[in-house]
């Protein structure tokens, strides 16, 4: 007993047992329904893209860790989530090298250069997609991506169609179809119901913050309703916006990314609402068909500014007795 060396650490000596691995594992679980649906709908190429995206993201993480002689941190699965989300946002026909470049940009430029986990001011996946979109928009064009596919529904990307052809196309997309994934889009971004189920699962498990999700959706609905009420002819109805494009994925999985979103209640509400608002603004008066990616990046950008609104700390402002 004399020579036994004890472990010495600081209090507390208990831990809730939560971990990053748990968090990311749950993220992956929550993404499963939408991803499975995508594979089911778009077939083997979709499976290929998802696998490649996930694995290449993890690989980049390992490579960068080796290059910079840091501890390899793939065990926390953070890069798997980044990769899978990336895969879910792109069309199934995306060439392999685009996927690999995209995950490189996402993992390295989005996350690694900022010091890895917890350091990224923006959502890494969105950084990847946004840069790809600027470089190679053609590969992210859902209308051309699926020309060789046969679908039993309107094979038009709803938002792009809305942008180019106006509200006349709205009749081709029923809310039910959008919710059930009967639309073209990213592999995992079409199955609205699946995303909602996954998102609610995450909220219940405590891994995403419900305030952001709710405010985000509220932002979309309120802004879209305002536009729609003012000019029903030029603008699409709110539910169409909510269920089309990346909106749901953004609300449930992208805007809630820990490191780039606020943690205090009021900021979370402002953040979410602003995100929803910007999406509708871009869709209705901007040049991009979907605005989710840039809108979420924009709220990521203002996150540090608004996250200073916080409840008063205990005793703050109490004068000395």
């Amino acid at each position, binding site marked *: 007993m004399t020579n036994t*060396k*004890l*472990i*010495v*650490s*600081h209090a507390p000596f208990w831990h809730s047992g939560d971990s990053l691995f748990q968090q990311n594992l749950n993220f992956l679980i929550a993404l499963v329904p939408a991803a499975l649906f995508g594979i089911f709908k778009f077939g083997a190429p979709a499976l290929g893209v998802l696998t490649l995206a996930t694995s290449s993201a993890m690989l980049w993480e390992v490579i960068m860790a080796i290059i910079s002689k840091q501890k390899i941190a793939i065990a926390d699965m953070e890069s798997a989530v980044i990769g899978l989300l990336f895969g879910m946002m792109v069309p199934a026909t995306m060439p392999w090298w685009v996927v690999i470049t995209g995950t490189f940009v996402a993992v390295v430029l989005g996350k690694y250069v900022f010091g890895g986990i917890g350091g990224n001011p923006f959502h890494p996946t969105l950084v990847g997609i946004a840069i790809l979109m600027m470089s190679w928009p053609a590969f992210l064009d859902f209308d051309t991506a699926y020309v060789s596919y046969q679908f039993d529904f309107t094979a038009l990307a709803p938002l792009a169609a809305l942008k180019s052809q106006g509200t006349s196309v709205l009749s081709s997309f029923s809310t039910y179809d959008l919710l059930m994934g009967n639309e073209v889009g990213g592999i995992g971004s079409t199955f609205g119901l699946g995303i909602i189920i996954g998102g609610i699962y995450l909220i219940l498990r405590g891994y995403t913050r419900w305030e952001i999700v709710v405010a985000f959706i509220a932002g979309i609905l309120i802004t879209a309703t305002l536009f729609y009420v003012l000019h029903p002819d030029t603008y699409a109805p709110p539910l169409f916006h909510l269920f089309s494009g990346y909106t749901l994925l953004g609300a449930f999985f992208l805007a809630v990314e820990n490191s780039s979103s606020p943690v205090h209640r009021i900021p979370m509400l402002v953040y979410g609402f602003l995100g929803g608002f910007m999406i509708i603004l871009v869709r209705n008066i901007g040049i991009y068909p979907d605005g989710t990616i840039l809108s979420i990046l924009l709220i990521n950008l203002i996150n540090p500014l608004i996250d200073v609104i916080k409840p008063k700390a205990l005793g703050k402002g109490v004068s000395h007795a």
Partner: protein
Amino acid sequence: MIPAILLMLGIGATCGIVLSLASKIFYVYEDPRIAQVENNLAGANCGGCGYAGCSAAAEAIVTGKEAPSLCIVNSKDGVEAVSRIMGVDAGEAEAPLSYNMCEGGNRAADKYHYMGVSSCKAMDAVYGGHRVCTVGCIGLGDCIKACKFGALDMGPDGYPVVDDAKCVGCGACQKACPKDIIQVKTLTEQLLKFNQTHDPLAPCAQTCPAEINIPKYISEIKAGKYAEAVQTIRMRNPLLLSCGRVCPHPCEDMCRRGLEDEPVSINQLKRFVADYEMNSGSRIPITCAPDTGKKVAVIGGGPAGLSCAYFLRRIGHQVDIFDAMPKLGGIIRYGIPEYRLPKKVLDWEIQGILDLGINAFTQVKFGVDFGLSSLVASGYNAIFMGIGAWSDYALGIEGENLDGCYKGIDWLSKFASGQDIKLGKTAAIVGGGNSAIDCVRTLKRLGLEKVYIVYRRTRKEMPANAVEIHAAEEEGIDFVFLAAPTRVIGDENGKVKGLEYLKMELGEPDKSGRRRPVPIEGSETVLDVDMVISAISQAPDPSFKDTDPTPKIKDLELTRWNTIDNNPETLQTSIPYIFTGGDSATGPSLVVTAIGGGRRAARAIDLFLKGKPVEPVENSLLGKRIPESIFKNVEGITPIKRAKMPEIPVNQRLDSMIEVDLVLPEDQALAEADRCLNCCRICYNPDTEFPIAK
């Protein structure tokens, strides 16, 4: 063309008038240095310093919030110019460097397993860190994280290594280190660092009177970095060639290997690198801090004076040495015979010191040729008195002044300076110290038939170096122990004929633990000799107090042994601007002690010259030992034979004065260096089973 000129004329004039008026109307006083500093910044207003523009940066510098090196764009000259404006004196403007004090903290055992914030500071807060060593490196690299210039790296041995080329001396590492291991020091501070009780010091380094970082230079020898080893020694000791030859190496007594095995031959390693430099044909450059414009006079060019002059010069002061003898070196030139320290070697060594820009005036005697007032009048700001101890004690017996009687140092110096000395055939040297041995060995070489050493105690009590006694024995010297001279017997011509002595026996041990010799009544014996040299110790020569006409010199207090009274920590004397050191401060002692004293005096002089209080080093170790560093046994040591000092065989050496001891060959030196355990305060490297793995 005309409109253009007119227009520009108009605009220019307007701007000029407006600005010049504005500068009068809206004049606000500000520290004029701000404008000066701003003029010396890059002026790019780039914001790279984190301040809003150059004037903001200049203000921050002038108000002392930032260092003169704030501007990232500024050139070196610019930084210097700014430092000058800020009145940072040149001595402090010298570039500081980070300096690691603990080399191998990971060798100390752990007391617990740590879990928590990965930083030294955090771990230090938990029971002082997981290492058993209280002063050693914790090893979590706070200093490395703190360095913005990438100048620190975790070395393979678990302690941070500083890359001097990248270090800018910002001090961030020092602030980050909870253990005070990384210290950012200017050259001056490094040169004037003295051992303190909280330093991570090996026993040998604690023992060395010159406070040389012994483990460091041995590990440098081990790594083949001989030049670095020389530099390390020179941080503390400018006379490494001499010390490498004559030092009785007290450090080896404390060597931990010595507890289980023979101690490492530290001094031979010193001599090895010192000779390496000398034989390499070129001198390793010695850096000096920028000039401070202060002048110091060093009286006495012996080891203490040379050491003091060397350190003062390196920290930027101007130094002149005055010596009464024709050549510098003092006792090591005139008291140590050629066969122990060849004059050629000494000349080379002293030249290296003078080459730093030190002037030497020889054959000028203090108190006779010049005095205190002349030094003060010549603008010297401080004086170091290292006048040594040259006046031999007399035996105090009858017949001491007969022809053929000499005094030790007097005789040695006469011989060394080439004066003609009448020699006899047989000689008796009274005394047991090193001077006595030097005399006998010299006489033996001069062809005397019989040379006796007469000492009143036994061999065990002889204060001379054991190796010297041994060499004397080898060379056939006769030892007469337990003999107290009572009379020198002269013949009719007044020449020495014999030495009468009384036999002694050892009595009860006295306070110092030595058994006192007690005379045996009626045991008078006569030794037939025609030369008697008494070498029973010396004292400084206080005659300058009488000959110097300056009244002030009377204030210089002497002790009853005629040494100059001084504060042993600062070596300041009773006259504030006079400092002392070496034998004149301590009485006859070791060369290396004098060198250490010279450096300590240099520190005090530096403080004095900079107008700071001359205070002792805080927590000074000075002669003390760190208790936890003194071991009783050392585990994991396989005895390995100590390198034997190569020397000229006895039959060859008695014919001439050639150097007896030789330098270690490189392979042996390396093997010897490998025996070093690279100790620190409590940790050391045990021998591994496979020496290659080390």
